[in-house]
């Protein structure tokens, strides 16, 4: 079985995000970019499936700017076997919307015929939480979202999902799309020898046009603003004082 893992290049979670002066988005010029943390978890899970003998090949796909090949190199260094870069924009500030991403992925799936797509539940830059679900609809495949445990057993997968009330375990038919949540696993560090090996692994480059997908944005960003600054805190002298302050504020 092949496992396909889409990975997105996003602003690093450590970076203090700044809104562009004209409010059109956040400033990405000269900012550290990394793999979306949820996608790291998806890659890790795919590699574990391979290590457990349940998958033969792990393919990482990224859709975006050319620089996303660095993100793919990270996936390869972690243990993915090969990578596909779909260049869909040359402007780092252009976000490719979930529907366009899902359409491109659907085309890649048709070409590669994986038995499983493991994706992050959302990207930390725009928090859309939509690509996996859209891909499922486009392919007519089953889906299991927000996975915190994944078991592949023959022609189906058993997935524990993080839902509002707690955990839910479902069984889905393969091929399937699983979107992963934070607690599924702890991604490994890419070791130095594997980073060196990654350079020699295949990385195919395509364009959105190769798949006949139009990536022109359908949404328009009206305004981007910084969150309101946090109000100054106070120090309380005792638990009693804390409780009375919370009551005053109507919080308890």
């Amino acid at each position, binding site marked *: 079985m092949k496992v396909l893992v889409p990975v997105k290049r996003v602003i690093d979670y450590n970076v203090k995000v700044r809104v562009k002066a004209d409010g059109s988005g956040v400033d990405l010029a*000269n900012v550290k970019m990394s793999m979306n943390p949820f996608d790291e978890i998806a890659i890790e899970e795919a590699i574990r499936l391979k290590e457990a003998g349940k998958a033969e090949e792990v393919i990482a796909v990224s859709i975006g700017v050319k620089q996303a*090949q*660095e993100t793919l*190199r990270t996936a390869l*260094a972690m243990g993915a076997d090969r990578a596909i870069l779909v260049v869909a924009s040359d402007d780092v500030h252009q976000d490719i919307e979930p529907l366009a991403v899902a359409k491109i992925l659907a085309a890649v799936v048709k070409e590669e015929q994986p038995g499983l797509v493991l994706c992050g539940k959302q990207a930390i830059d725009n928090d859309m939480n939509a690509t996996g679900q859209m891909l499922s609809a486009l392919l007519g495949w089953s889906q299991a979202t927000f996975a915190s445990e994944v078991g592949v057993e023959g022609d189906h997968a058993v997935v524990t999902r993080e839902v509002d009330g707690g955990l839910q375990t479902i069984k889905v038919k393969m091929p399937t799309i699983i979107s992963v949540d934070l607690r599924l696993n702890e991604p490994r*560090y890419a070791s*130095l*020898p594997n980073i060196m090996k990654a*350079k020699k692994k295949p990385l195919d480059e395509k364009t959105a046009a190769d798949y006949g997908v139009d990536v022109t944005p359908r949404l328009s960003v009206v305004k981007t603003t910084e969150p309101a600054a946090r109000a100054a805190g106070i120090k309380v002298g005792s638990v009693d004082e804390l409780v009375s302050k919370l009551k005053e504020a109507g919080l308890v």
Partner: protein
Amino acid sequence: MRAYDRDDLMFQLWEVAELASLIEDSDLDRAAVMGILDTADQIAGDHFLPLGRLLDEEEPRFENGRAIIPEPAVAAIRAHAAAGFIASGFEPAHGGMGLPEIVHQAAAYVFSASNISLAGYGLLTVGAGRLIQSFGTEAQKRRYLEPMAEGRFFGTMCLSEPQAGSSLSDITTRAEPVGDGTYRITGRKMWISGGEQEVTDNIVHMVLAKIPGGPPGVKGISLFIVPKRRADGAPNDVTLAGLNHKMGYRGTTNCALNFGEAGTCIGELLGEPHKGLSYMFQMMNEARIGVGMGATALGQAGYQASLAYARERPQGRAVGAKDPTTPQVPIIAHSDVRRLLLAQKAAVEPALALSLYCARLVDLHARGDAGAGQLLDMLTPIAKSWPSEFCLEANKHAIQVLGGAGYTRDYPVERYYRDNRLNHIHEGTHGIQGMDLLGRKVMIDGGAGFRALMAVIRADIAAAQGSDLAARLAAALDRVEAVTAQLAAGVMRDPDRGLANATLYLDAMGHVVMGWMWLRLTRAATRVAARDGDSAFLRGKHQAARYFVAREVSRVDGWCDVLAANDQSAFDMETEWF
């Protein structure tokens, strides 16, 4: 938060040290280097940085001859080794990765800034392993190098003894031939970093000792590989006599070791007899640059902590603000606090530039560039000492920015200061470095190395085409050059008197070299601005350079006055007059 400035490190690697040209025809490319530094960043952030305070408060414990270190440290040390950051310091033949020294050092910088005493174990292992790599037999390399690269064995450097620190010719550890090619080692070693720990299966001690009947002094010192355990796992009669209780660097065990208490400690000779110290010296450049890099990393960590604090801490109002009901401003709004921050920035950034410049010279030298080797020899005492002195000063400023908070252990800045205070002392004290610079490096080959350095700096000054920075640096350079000629003549006449002001000379030369580094940093900043547009980051480089020239390079003249006047107040001070 990071303990180092990643943007600055990237700028310095790619734009100032021009790493791309160095890796052009190697297995590495930009993405691989970025990947390596990302892994360093992650492990340092997850495992090193969070342990700073814990390892400072819970010193290693000495129990029944064992050295116990806190459990989380063990996990951190293993994660670092498992990812390949020790292998990165070795050649590929025996489990190493053959990375350029500059990349290895850049990663070491990330770890050192995040937790210097944890980084110590790996750095020592690389230092010890490189001796075996350079001078060992194939069998020795097979036996020790691979496990060291994998982090299964760690290494130590056993030079110092209670009665012989700076003066290694006075060591008394003995090595007597057993008859089967091995040697029986007896003696006491002192101050041995990493001398005992239970993280690894074995410890490979690189021990300086004298073979009876050899020449006296340093010419009779040989180097031995003395493992804690023999090949069959049996103990090799190396005993931990006790742990030293240090001011800083507390996560690294520091040991008094007894070799051969029971007469059964066996060592293998490394290389030829009586060449031990010369072998050590051949590895000294890297080790000393590493110390400078560590001092720089600690300076940087203090700078980052105090900068973050200064942006947040509200205190006082603008001098001209008359209304006491207005909110207080963050202290970064005060000019004197900005001075304290700028002083740190102006010291730590060129110190990093010099460390990377020297690491690059190591790489060029390894490729057969003799000129790089000559320049490296010349710069090494400065690369070790200047950060030890002036990045320590930066740590003092960091404490000051935090005010009362800086003086407490609730914040890391006082710890950085304590950690950094070591760098003046080990790998050749500050005084020894001054004598090395003026008494040896400047004098060697009739001053050829010194002239080569002057020429390289002048070429960069010429390329800067009359900027204010270049002009003032040129004047300081002329001054130092003239003073050097005068001092060199003095050293020839009377070495004792001539070297009496060697540390002051070390400071003066160091300041000129750092002014030169600022020239290189600003030149790169100008180039990047032309290519990618100007930015706050790039403007900060120019401003810090301006500060350094105005406040620091200007001091060179005063120091040169003292040197030129041949002040002998210290030399002539008689012991009884104290």
